[in-house]
Protein backbone atom coordinates (compact mmCIF):
# COMPACT_ATOMS: atom_id res chain seq x y z
CA UNK A 1 0.00 0.00 0.00
CA UNK A 2 1.33 3.45 -0.84
CA UNK A 3 2.28 5.93 1.83
CA UNK A 4 0.18 8.94 2.75
CA UNK A 5 2.70 10.51 5.10
CA UNK A 6 6.21 9.73 6.27
CA UNK A 7 8.42 11.33 8.90
CA UNK A 8 12.15 10.80 8.32
CA UNK A 9 14.16 11.58 11.45
CA UNK A 10 11.97 14.64 11.95
CA UNK A 11 13.28 16.83 14.74
CA UNK A 12 11.98 20.15 16.01
CA UNK A 13 13.71 22.28 18.61
CA UNK A 14 12.38 25.38 20.36
CA UNK A 15 15.51 26.96 21.80
CA UNK A 16 16.88 24.35 24.19
CA UNK A 17 13.72 22.23 24.15
CA UNK A 18 13.52 19.32 21.74
CA UNK A 19 9.78 19.02 21.18
CA UNK A 20 10.05 16.33 18.52
CA UNK A 21 13.19 14.21 18.57
CA UNK A 22 14.25 12.10 15.61
CA UNK A 23 10.80 10.74 14.79
CA UNK A 24 10.51 8.26 11.95
CA UNK A 25 7.31 6.49 11.02
CA UNK A 26 4.89 6.41 8.18
CA UNK A 27 1.15 6.17 7.66
CA UNK A 28 -0.23 4.25 4.68
CA UNK A 29 -2.98 5.54 2.42
CA UNK A 30 -6.34 4.86 3.96
CA UNK A 31 -4.92 3.84 7.34
CA UNK A 32 -6.55 4.85 10.63
CA UNK A 33 -3.91 5.57 13.27
CA UNK A 34 -4.11 6.79 16.84
CA UNK A 35 -1.38 9.00 18.26
CA UNK A 36 -1.14 9.02 22.05
CA UNK A 37 1.24 10.18 24.73
CA UNK A 38 1.43 12.38 27.81
CA UNK A 39 0.98 16.15 27.59
CA UNK A 40 4.06 17.74 26.10
CA UNK A 41 5.08 14.54 24.31
CA UNK A 42 5.24 16.41 20.99
CA UNK A 43 2.02 15.16 19.34
CA UNK A 44 0.73 18.58 18.31
CA UNK A 45 4.20 19.67 17.22
CA UNK A 46 4.34 16.60 15.03
CA UNK A 47 0.98 17.60 13.53
CA UNK A 48 2.35 21.07 12.88
CA UNK A 49 5.38 19.59 11.14
CA UNK A 50 3.19 17.38 8.98
CA UNK A 51 0.87 20.22 7.94
CA UNK A 52 3.53 22.86 7.30
CA UNK A 53 2.77 25.15 10.25
CA UNK A 54 6.27 24.41 11.53
CA UNK A 55 9.40 23.44 9.63
CA UNK A 56 11.53 20.65 11.08
CA UNK A 57 14.88 21.73 12.54
CA UNK A 58 16.28 18.66 10.85
CA UNK A 59 14.90 15.63 9.06
CA UNK A 60 12.15 15.51 6.45
CA UNK A 61 8.41 15.22 6.03
CA UNK A 62 7.16 13.43 2.93
CA UNK A 63 3.54 13.52 1.77
CA UNK A 64 2.80 10.97 -0.93
CA UNK A 65 5.95 11.13 -3.02
CA UNK A 66 6.75 14.77 -2.35
CA UNK A 67 9.17 16.24 0.18
CA UNK A 68 6.94 18.87 1.83
CA UNK A 69 9.46 20.12 4.37
CA UNK A 70 9.19 23.71 3.16
CA UNK A 71 5.73 23.78 1.56
CA UNK A 72 3.46 26.41 3.21
CA UNK A 73 0.40 25.09 5.07
CA UNK A 74 -2.27 26.42 2.70
CA UNK A 75 -0.62 24.63 -0.23
CA UNK A 76 -0.45 21.41 1.75
CA UNK A 77 -4.15 21.79 2.55
CA UNK A 78 -4.79 22.13 -1.21
CA UNK A 79 -2.85 18.95 -1.79
CA UNK A 80 -5.27 17.03 0.38
CA UNK A 81 -3.65 17.30 3.80
CA UNK A 82 -6.41 18.43 6.13
CA UNK A 83 -6.30 19.01 9.87
CA UNK A 84 -8.24 20.21 12.87
CA UNK A 85 -6.86 21.97 15.91
CA UNK A 86 -6.83 21.25 19.63
CA UNK A 87 -9.02 24.32 20.17
CA UNK A 88 -11.65 24.31 17.42
CA UNK A 89 -10.96 26.92 14.78
CA UNK A 90 -13.97 28.75 13.32
CA UNK A 91 -14.98 32.11 11.86
CA UNK A 92 -17.30 33.91 14.30
CA UNK A 93 -18.62 36.47 11.79
CA UNK A 94 -19.92 33.75 9.49
CA UNK A 95 -22.87 31.37 9.66
CA UNK A 96 -22.22 27.65 10.09
CA UNK A 97 -22.83 27.11 6.38
CA UNK A 98 -20.42 29.88 5.39
CA UNK A 99 -17.83 28.47 7.78
CA UNK A 100 -17.80 25.28 5.72
CA UNK A 101 -17.86 27.23 2.44
CA UNK A 102 -14.64 29.06 3.36
CA UNK A 103 -12.92 25.88 2.19
CA UNK A 104 -14.63 26.09 -1.23
CA UNK A 105 -12.10 26.82 -3.93
CA UNK A 106 -12.50 29.53 -6.59
CA UNK A 107 -10.26 29.98 -9.61
CA UNK A 108 -8.74 33.50 -9.38
CA UNK A 109 -10.94 34.50 -6.42
CA UNK A 110 -10.64 38.27 -6.89
CA UNK A 111 -11.35 38.22 -10.61
CA UNK A 112 -14.26 35.83 -10.21
CA UNK A 113 -15.69 38.08 -7.47
CA UNK A 114 -15.60 41.06 -9.82
CA UNK A 115 -16.95 39.25 -12.87
CA UNK A 116 -19.45 37.17 -10.90
CA UNK A 117 -17.99 33.93 -12.30
CA UNK A 118 -18.13 32.39 -8.81
CA UNK A 119 -21.92 32.05 -9.13
CA UNK A 120 -21.52 29.18 -11.58
CA UNK A 121 -20.00 27.00 -8.88
CA UNK A 122 -21.82 28.35 -5.86
CA UNK A 123 -24.92 26.17 -5.95
CA UNK A 124 -22.91 23.00 -6.27
CA UNK A 125 -20.59 24.12 -3.46
CA UNK A 126 -23.47 25.02 -1.20
CA UNK A 127 -25.06 21.62 -1.72
CA UNK A 128 -21.81 19.95 -0.76
CA UNK A 129 -21.50 22.15 2.35
CA UNK A 130 -25.07 21.29 3.40
CA UNK A 131 -24.40 17.61 2.83
CA UNK A 132 -21.35 17.81 5.12
CA UNK A 133 -23.32 19.69 7.78
CA UNK A 134 -25.92 16.92 7.63
CA UNK A 135 -23.17 14.37 7.99
CA UNK A 136 -21.86 15.95 11.21
CA UNK A 137 -25.39 16.51 12.54
CA UNK A 138 -25.53 20.28 12.12
CA UNK A 139 -28.03 20.53 9.25
CA UNK A 140 -30.51 22.35 11.48
CA UNK A 141 -27.85 24.89 12.43
CA UNK A 142 -26.72 25.84 8.93
CA UNK A 143 -27.88 29.46 9.04
CA UNK A 144 -26.99 30.07 12.70
CA UNK A 145 -24.10 32.43 13.47
CA UNK A 146 -21.22 30.17 14.36
CA UNK A 147 -20.49 32.37 17.39
CA UNK A 148 -23.69 30.89 18.89
CA UNK A 149 -22.67 27.26 18.51
CA UNK A 150 -21.56 25.17 21.48
CA UNK A 151 -17.99 23.91 21.89
CA UNK A 152 -18.98 20.42 20.72
CA UNK A 153 -20.83 21.79 17.70
CA UNK A 154 -17.83 23.90 16.75
CA UNK A 155 -15.69 20.78 16.66
CA UNK A 156 -18.12 19.06 14.34
CA UNK A 157 -18.28 22.21 12.21
CA UNK A 158 -14.51 22.22 11.89
CA UNK A 159 -14.49 18.59 10.79
CA UNK A 160 -17.16 19.36 8.19
CA UNK A 161 -15.08 22.23 6.80
CA UNK A 162 -11.91 20.16 6.71
CA UNK A 163 -13.72 17.42 4.77
CA UNK A 164 -14.97 19.85 2.12
CA UNK A 165 -12.04 19.39 -0.25
CA UNK A 166 -12.03 15.59 -0.03
CA UNK A 167 -8.66 15.24 1.71
CA UNK A 168 -6.51 12.17 1.31
CA UNK A 169 -5.19 12.55 4.85
CA UNK A 170 -7.08 13.95 7.83
CA UNK A 171 -5.32 14.82 11.09
CA UNK A 172 -7.60 15.28 14.09
CA UNK A 173 -6.16 16.90 17.22
CA UNK A 174 -8.11 15.76 20.30
CA UNK A 175 -11.49 15.63 18.56
CA UNK A 176 -13.45 14.55 21.64
CA UNK A 177 -12.23 17.28 23.99
CA UNK A 178 -15.30 19.20 25.16
CA UNK A 179 -17.70 16.96 23.23
CA UNK A 180 -20.60 15.40 25.18
CA UNK A 181 -20.57 11.57 25.46
CA UNK A 182 -23.54 10.94 23.14
CA UNK A 183 -21.94 13.14 20.44
CA UNK A 184 -18.64 11.30 20.84
CA UNK A 185 -20.38 8.22 19.49
CA UNK A 186 -21.45 10.21 16.41
CA UNK A 187 -17.91 11.47 16.06
CA UNK A 188 -16.47 7.94 16.21
CA UNK A 189 -18.95 6.86 13.55
CA UNK A 190 -18.01 9.83 11.39
CA UNK A 191 -14.29 9.08 11.66
CA UNK A 192 -14.92 5.44 10.80
CA UNK A 193 -16.98 6.35 7.75
CA UNK A 194 -14.36 8.85 6.55
CA UNK A 195 -11.77 6.13 6.96
CA UNK A 196 -13.95 3.66 5.02
CA UNK A 197 -13.99 6.12 2.12
CA UNK A 198 -10.24 5.60 1.82
CA UNK A 199 -9.05 8.69 3.71
CA UNK A 200 -6.02 8.15 5.93
CA UNK A 201 -6.80 9.47 9.42
CA UNK A 202 -4.48 10.23 12.32
CA UNK A 203 -6.19 10.94 15.63
CA UNK A 204 -4.49 12.48 18.64
CA UNK A 205 -6.61 11.55 21.63
CA UNK A 206 -6.42 11.12 25.39
CA UNK A 207 -9.79 9.44 25.54
CA UNK A 208 -8.44 5.90 25.14
CA UNK A 209 -11.83 4.23 25.39
CA UNK A 210 -12.86 6.23 22.35
CA UNK A 211 -9.62 5.72 20.48
CA UNK A 212 -8.61 2.12 21.08
CA UNK A 213 -11.97 0.74 20.01
CA UNK A 214 -11.71 2.56 16.71
CA UNK A 215 -8.16 2.35 15.37
CA UNK A 216 -6.06 -0.57 14.09
CA UNK A 217 -2.73 0.97 15.00
CA UNK A 218 -1.46 3.22 17.75
CA UNK A 219 1.74 5.25 17.88
CA UNK A 220 2.81 6.35 21.35
CA UNK A 221 5.12 9.31 21.91
CA UNK A 222 6.91 10.50 25.04
CA UNK A 223 9.37 13.37 25.41
CA UNK A 224 9.45 13.97 21.68
CA UNK A 225 10.22 10.41 20.62
CA UNK A 226 8.15 7.49 19.40
CA UNK A 227 8.33 4.89 22.17
CA UNK A 228 5.89 2.33 20.82
CA UNK A 229 4.05 1.54 17.59
CA UNK A 230 1.61 -1.36 17.32
CA UNK A 231 -1.94 -2.63 17.68
CA UNK A 232 -4.09 -1.23 20.50
CA UNK A 233 -3.55 -4.43 22.52
CA UNK A 234 0.21 -4.29 22.13
CA UNK A 235 0.28 -0.64 23.15
CA UNK A 236 -1.98 -1.27 26.12
CA UNK A 237 0.39 -3.89 27.49
CA UNK A 238 3.68 -2.25 26.53
CA UNK A 239 5.73 -1.60 29.70
CA UNK A 240 7.29 1.58 28.24
CA UNK A 241 3.83 2.99 27.43
CA UNK A 242 2.53 2.06 30.88
CA UNK A 243 5.49 3.77 32.53
CA UNK A 244 5.36 6.93 30.39
CA UNK A 245 1.66 7.43 29.83
CA UNK A 246 -0.90 4.96 31.12
CA UNK A 247 0.40 4.58 34.66
CA UNK A 248 -0.81 1.71 36.87
CA UNK A 249 0.86 -1.08 38.85
CA UNK A 250 4.56 -1.48 38.26
Amino acid at each position, binding site marked *: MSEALRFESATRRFGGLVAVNDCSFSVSSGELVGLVGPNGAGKSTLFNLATG*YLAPSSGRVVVGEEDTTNVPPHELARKGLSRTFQTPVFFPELSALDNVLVAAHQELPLVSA*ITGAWKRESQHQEERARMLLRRVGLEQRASVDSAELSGGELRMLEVARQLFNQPSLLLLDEPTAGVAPHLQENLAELIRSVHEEGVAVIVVEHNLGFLLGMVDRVVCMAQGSVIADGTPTQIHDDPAVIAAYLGGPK
Partner: protein
Amino acid sequence: MSPLLAAVITVGILIGIYGVVAIALNFQYGEAGLINFGVVAYFAIGAYTFAILTAGPPSETALDQYRWGFNLHPFLAALVAGLVGVIFSMISGWPALRLRGEYLALTTFAFAEVLQSSLVNVRAVTNGTSGFAGVVQPFRDAVGNYNLLILVAALALLLFTMWFFQRLVRSPYGRTLRAIKGDEVGVTASGKSPEKYRREAFFLSAFFIALAGVVFVIWLTLARPTSFGAEITFFVWIAMILGGEGNNWRVLAAISGLIIFDELIGALPLESVEAVQRVNAGQIFLTGLLFVLVLRWRTPRAGAI
Protein backbone atom coordinates in the same frame (compact mmCIF):
# COMPACT_ATOMS: atom_id res chain seq x y z
CA MET B 1 -26.16 80.87 -8.17
CA SER B 2 -27.54 81.27 -4.69
CA PRO B 3 -25.08 80.83 -1.81
CA LEU B 4 -27.24 78.04 -0.44
CA LEU B 5 -27.04 76.04 -3.65
CA ALA B 6 -23.29 76.60 -3.79
CA ALA B 7 -23.00 75.32 -0.22
CA VAL B 8 -25.11 72.26 -1.03
CA ILE B 9 -22.87 71.49 -4.01
CA THR B 10 -19.74 71.86 -1.85
CA VAL B 11 -21.18 69.49 0.75
CA GLY B 12 -22.10 67.01 -1.98
CA ILE B 13 -18.59 67.08 -3.44
CA LEU B 14 -17.01 66.57 -0.01
CA ILE B 15 -19.37 63.68 0.72
CA GLY B 16 -18.46 62.14 -2.63
CA ILE B 17 -14.70 62.44 -2.12
CA TYR B 18 -14.49 61.48 1.56
CA GLY B 19 -17.24 58.90 1.02
CA VAL B 20 -14.99 57.04 -1.42
CA VAL B 21 -12.13 57.11 1.08
CA ALA B 22 -14.41 55.94 3.90
CA ILE B 23 -15.90 53.08 1.85
CA ALA B 24 -12.43 51.93 0.78
CA LEU B 25 -11.22 52.13 4.38
CA ASN B 26 -14.32 50.26 5.50
CA PHE B 27 -13.37 47.46 3.14
CA GLN B 28 -9.82 47.35 4.51
CA TYR B 29 -10.84 47.44 8.15
CA GLY B 30 -14.47 46.31 8.28
CA GLU B 31 -13.93 43.29 6.03
CA ALA B 32 -10.23 42.49 6.08
CA GLY B 33 -9.40 43.77 9.57
CA LEU B 34 -6.44 45.85 8.37
CA ILE B 35 -5.76 48.89 10.52
CA ASN B 36 -4.52 51.56 8.11
CA PHE B 37 -3.66 54.84 9.83
CA GLY B 38 -1.96 56.13 6.70
CA VAL B 39 -5.06 56.60 4.55
CA VAL B 40 -4.11 60.17 3.69
CA ALA B 41 -0.90 58.97 2.01
CA TYR B 42 -2.78 57.23 -0.81
CA PHE B 43 -5.10 60.21 -1.12
CA ALA B 44 -2.09 62.54 -1.45
CA ILE B 45 -0.36 60.22 -3.92
CA GLY B 46 -3.43 60.33 -6.19
CA ALA B 47 -3.68 64.11 -5.99
CA TYR B 48 0.03 64.79 -6.51
CA THR B 49 0.46 62.25 -9.29
CA PHE B 50 -2.38 63.85 -11.19
CA ALA B 51 -0.99 67.35 -10.60
CA ILE B 52 2.52 66.40 -11.71
CA LEU B 53 1.44 64.39 -14.74
CA THR B 54 -0.85 67.13 -16.08
CA ALA B 55 1.47 70.04 -15.24
CA GLY B 56 3.27 71.90 -17.99
CA PRO B 57 7.03 72.40 -17.95
CA PRO B 58 8.41 74.46 -15.05
CA SER B 59 8.72 78.18 -15.64
CA GLU B 60 11.69 80.30 -14.56
CA THR B 61 9.61 83.36 -13.83
CA ALA B 62 7.21 81.57 -11.48
CA LEU B 63 10.19 80.31 -9.43
CA ASP B 64 9.09 76.71 -9.98
CA GLN B 65 11.31 74.21 -8.24
CA TYR B 66 9.97 71.08 -9.95
CA ARG B 67 11.84 69.74 -12.94
CA TRP B 68 9.32 67.57 -14.72
CA GLY B 69 5.84 68.38 -15.98
CA PHE B 70 4.29 65.92 -18.38
CA ASN B 71 1.29 67.63 -19.96
CA LEU B 72 -0.48 64.28 -19.93
CA HIS B 73 -4.14 63.93 -20.92
CA PRO B 74 -6.23 64.25 -17.73
CA PHE B 75 -8.04 60.92 -18.18
CA LEU B 76 -4.80 59.05 -18.65
CA ALA B 77 -3.28 60.97 -15.73
CA ALA B 78 -6.21 59.99 -13.48
CA LEU B 79 -5.81 56.32 -14.32
CA VAL B 80 -2.04 56.45 -13.78
CA ALA B 81 -2.64 58.27 -10.47
CA GLY B 82 -4.81 55.37 -9.30
CA LEU B 83 -2.14 52.88 -10.35
CA VAL B 84 0.62 54.87 -8.65
CA GLY B 85 -1.53 54.71 -5.52
CA VAL B 86 -1.50 50.93 -5.87
CA ILE B 87 2.27 50.89 -6.43
CA PHE B 88 2.80 53.00 -3.34
CA SER B 89 0.54 50.68 -1.37
CA MET B 90 2.70 47.78 -2.56
CA ILE B 91 5.85 49.54 -1.40
CA SER B 92 4.37 50.46 1.95
CA GLY B 93 2.43 47.19 2.24
CA TRP B 94 5.37 44.92 1.61
CA PRO B 95 6.85 45.41 5.08
CA ALA B 96 3.64 46.58 6.76
CA LEU B 97 1.32 43.71 5.84
CA ARG B 98 3.49 41.20 7.65
CA LEU B 99 2.47 43.02 10.80
CA ARG B 100 -0.77 42.74 12.72
CA GLY B 101 -3.11 45.10 14.51
CA GLU B 102 -1.44 48.03 16.18
CA TYR B 103 1.90 47.34 14.49
CA LEU B 104 0.33 47.70 11.07
CA ALA B 105 -1.41 50.86 12.30
CA LEU B 106 1.88 52.41 13.41
CA THR B 107 3.74 51.45 10.25
CA THR B 108 1.09 52.86 7.91
CA PHE B 109 0.96 56.04 10.01
CA ALA B 110 4.74 56.37 9.75
CA PHE B 111 4.57 55.92 5.97
CA ALA B 112 2.05 58.73 5.67
CA GLU B 113 4.27 61.01 7.75
CA VAL B 114 7.31 60.16 5.62
CA LEU B 115 5.31 60.88 2.50
CA GLN B 116 4.11 64.26 3.75
CA SER B 117 7.68 65.16 4.63
CA SER B 118 8.81 64.04 1.15
CA LEU B 119 6.16 66.27 -0.44
CA VAL B 120 7.86 69.22 1.25
CA ASN B 121 11.44 68.17 0.65
CA VAL B 122 11.69 66.35 -2.67
CA ARG B 123 11.30 69.68 -4.44
CA ALA B 124 12.43 68.53 -7.87
CA VAL B 125 9.31 66.39 -8.06
CA THR B 126 6.76 67.98 -5.76
CA ASN B 127 7.70 71.65 -6.02
CA GLY B 128 8.21 71.86 -2.23
CA THR B 129 5.90 73.80 0.04
CA SER B 130 4.29 75.68 -2.85
CA GLY B 131 3.12 72.45 -4.45
CA PHE B 132 1.07 72.84 -7.58
CA ALA B 133 -1.48 75.56 -8.20
CA GLY B 134 -3.73 75.87 -11.22
CA VAL B 135 -4.07 72.11 -11.68
CA VAL B 136 -5.77 71.20 -14.96
CA GLN B 137 -9.55 71.01 -14.87
CA PRO B 138 -10.81 68.87 -17.75
CA PHE B 139 -13.89 70.24 -19.59
CA ARG B 140 -13.39 73.54 -17.78
CA ASP B 141 -14.82 75.56 -20.67
CA ALA B 142 -17.54 73.12 -21.63
CA VAL B 143 -19.80 73.78 -18.64
CA GLY B 144 -20.99 76.96 -16.97
CA ASN B 145 -20.93 75.74 -13.38
CA TYR B 146 -17.82 73.62 -13.06
CA ASN B 147 -18.52 72.60 -9.47
CA LEU B 148 -21.67 70.90 -10.69
CA LEU B 149 -19.54 68.74 -12.97
CA ILE B 150 -17.20 67.93 -10.07
CA LEU B 151 -20.24 67.02 -7.98
CA VAL B 152 -21.43 64.59 -10.65
CA ALA B 153 -17.93 63.09 -10.98
CA ALA B 154 -17.50 62.73 -7.21
CA LEU B 155 -20.90 61.10 -6.72
CA ALA B 156 -20.38 58.81 -9.72
CA LEU B 157 -17.06 57.68 -8.27
CA LEU B 158 -18.74 57.16 -4.90
CA LEU B 159 -21.53 55.05 -6.40
CA PHE B 160 -19.07 52.99 -8.41
CA THR B 161 -16.87 52.45 -5.34
CA MET B 162 -19.85 51.30 -3.27
CA TRP B 163 -21.07 49.00 -6.01
CA PHE B 164 -17.61 47.55 -6.50
CA PHE B 165 -16.87 46.80 -2.85
CA GLN B 166 -20.41 45.58 -2.19
CA ARG B 167 -19.93 43.12 -5.03
CA LEU B 168 -16.73 41.83 -3.44
CA VAL B 169 -18.25 41.66 0.03
CA ARG B 170 -21.18 39.55 -1.19
CA SER B 171 -18.96 37.09 -3.05
CA PRO B 172 -16.87 34.21 -1.67
CA TYR B 173 -14.01 36.72 -1.71
CA GLY B 174 -15.65 38.81 1.00
CA ARG B 175 -16.50 35.67 2.93
CA THR B 176 -12.83 34.69 2.94
CA LEU B 177 -11.81 38.16 4.12
CA ARG B 178 -14.24 37.97 7.04
CA ALA B 179 -12.91 34.51 7.81
CA ILE B 180 -9.35 35.87 7.86
CA LYS B 181 -10.46 38.54 10.30
CA GLY B 182 -11.87 35.79 12.53
CA ASP B 183 -9.08 33.24 12.37
CA GLU B 184 -6.17 33.26 9.95
CA VAL B 185 -4.95 29.82 10.88
CA GLY B 186 -8.32 28.35 9.97
CA VAL B 187 -8.20 30.00 6.55
CA THR B 188 -4.75 28.54 5.96
CA ALA B 189 -6.05 25.12 6.95
CA SER B 190 -8.83 25.61 4.39
CA GLY B 191 -6.24 25.93 1.62
CA LYS B 192 -6.14 29.71 1.21
CA SER B 193 -3.32 32.16 1.79
CA PRO B 194 -4.40 34.98 4.16
CA GLU B 195 -1.37 37.06 3.11
CA LYS B 196 -2.52 37.09 -0.50
CA TYR B 197 -6.03 38.23 0.40
CA ARG B 198 -4.75 40.88 2.79
CA ARG B 199 -2.41 42.29 0.18
CA GLU B 200 -5.12 42.44 -2.46
CA ALA B 201 -7.57 44.17 -0.12
CA PHE B 202 -4.90 46.72 0.75
CA PHE B 203 -3.95 47.43 -2.88
CA LEU B 204 -7.51 47.65 -4.15
CA SER B 205 -8.51 50.17 -1.51
CA ALA B 206 -5.45 52.27 -2.31
CA PHE B 207 -6.59 52.52 -5.94
CA PHE B 208 -9.95 54.03 -4.98
CA ILE B 209 -8.47 56.32 -2.34
CA ALA B 210 -5.99 57.65 -4.91
CA LEU B 211 -8.84 58.30 -7.38
CA ALA B 212 -10.65 60.27 -4.68
CA GLY B 213 -7.43 62.30 -4.35
CA VAL B 214 -7.58 63.04 -8.09
CA VAL B 215 -11.13 64.43 -7.85
CA PHE B 216 -10.06 66.42 -4.78
CA VAL B 217 -7.14 68.08 -6.58
CA ILE B 218 -9.15 68.81 -9.75
CA TRP B 219 -11.76 70.50 -7.60
CA LEU B 220 -9.33 72.62 -5.57
CA THR B 221 -6.82 73.05 -8.46
CA LEU B 222 -4.26 73.03 -5.66
CA ALA B 223 -1.89 70.37 -4.32
CA ARG B 224 0.02 71.44 -1.21
CA PRO B 225 1.69 69.33 1.48
CA THR B 226 -0.40 71.03 4.18
CA SER B 227 -3.60 69.71 2.58
CA PHE B 228 -2.61 66.13 3.33
CA GLY B 229 -2.08 65.90 7.08
CA ALA B 230 -3.07 63.09 9.43
CA GLU B 231 -6.33 64.88 10.25
CA ILE B 232 -7.81 63.52 6.99
CA THR B 233 -6.99 59.99 8.11
CA PHE B 234 -8.61 60.50 11.48
CA PHE B 235 -11.64 62.28 10.05
CA VAL B 236 -12.41 59.26 7.88
CA TRP B 237 -11.67 56.84 10.71
CA ILE B 238 -14.05 58.65 13.05
CA ALA B 239 -16.78 58.47 10.41
CA MET B 240 -16.21 54.77 9.91
CA ILE B 241 -16.31 53.99 13.63
CA LEU B 242 -19.40 56.17 14.12
CA GLY B 243 -21.18 54.42 11.26
CA GLY B 244 -20.14 50.99 12.47
CA GLU B 245 -17.46 49.23 10.47
CA GLY B 246 -18.66 46.78 7.89
CA ASN B 247 -21.80 48.72 6.93
CA ASN B 248 -21.25 51.00 3.93
CA TRP B 249 -24.56 52.87 4.08
CA ARG B 250 -24.17 53.76 7.73
CA VAL B 251 -20.56 54.80 7.20
CA LEU B 252 -21.73 57.02 4.37
CA ALA B 253 -24.43 58.51 6.62
CA ALA B 254 -21.83 59.17 9.31
CA ILE B 255 -19.39 60.91 7.00
CA SER B 256 -22.23 62.98 5.52
CA GLY B 257 -23.28 64.01 9.02
CA LEU B 258 -19.74 65.03 9.97
CA ILE B 259 -19.25 67.03 6.76
CA ILE B 260 -22.58 68.84 7.10
CA PHE B 261 -21.79 69.61 10.75
CA ASP B 262 -18.39 70.93 9.71
CA GLU B 263 -19.83 73.12 6.95
CA LEU B 264 -22.61 74.47 9.18
CA ILE B 265 -20.07 75.56 11.75
CA GLY B 266 -17.94 77.09 9.01
CA ALA B 267 -20.97 79.11 7.89
CA LEU B 268 -21.57 80.67 11.32
CA PRO B 269 -21.27 84.48 11.08
CA LEU B 270 -18.44 84.98 13.56
CA GLU B 271 -17.14 88.46 14.16
CA SER B 272 -14.00 88.04 16.25
CA VAL B 273 -10.93 85.78 16.20
CA GLU B 274 -11.80 84.69 19.72
CA ALA B 275 -15.24 83.55 18.63
CA VAL B 276 -13.72 81.48 15.83
CA GLN B 277 -11.31 79.85 18.29
CA ARG B 278 -14.11 79.05 20.72
CA VAL B 279 -16.29 77.52 18.04
CA ASN B 280 -13.39 75.44 16.70
CA ALA B 281 -12.61 74.15 20.18
CA GLY B 282 -16.30 73.40 20.72
CA GLN B 283 -16.46 71.48 17.47
CA ILE B 284 -13.52 69.27 18.40
CA PHE B 285 -15.04 68.73 21.84
CA LEU B 286 -18.43 67.74 20.41
CA THR B 287 -16.93 65.36 17.85
CA GLY B 288 -14.89 63.71 20.58
CA LEU B 289 -17.88 63.44 22.88
CA LEU B 290 -19.99 61.90 20.12
CA PHE B 291 -17.20 59.42 19.44
CA VAL B 292 -17.02 58.34 23.07
CA LEU B 293 -20.81 58.00 23.34
CA VAL B 294 -21.09 55.91 20.17
CA LEU B 295 -18.28 53.61 21.26
CA ARG B 296 -19.96 53.18 24.64
CA TRP B 297 -23.43 52.27 23.34
CA ARG B 298 -23.06 50.74 19.94
CA THR B 299 -23.90 47.07 19.57
CA PRO B 300 -20.89 44.94 18.75
CA ARG B 301 -20.95 42.78 15.64
CA ALA B 302 -21.34 39.06 16.02
CA GLY B 303 -18.06 37.57 17.14
CA ALA B 304 -16.59 40.91 18.14
CA ILE B 305 -16.54 39.84 21.78
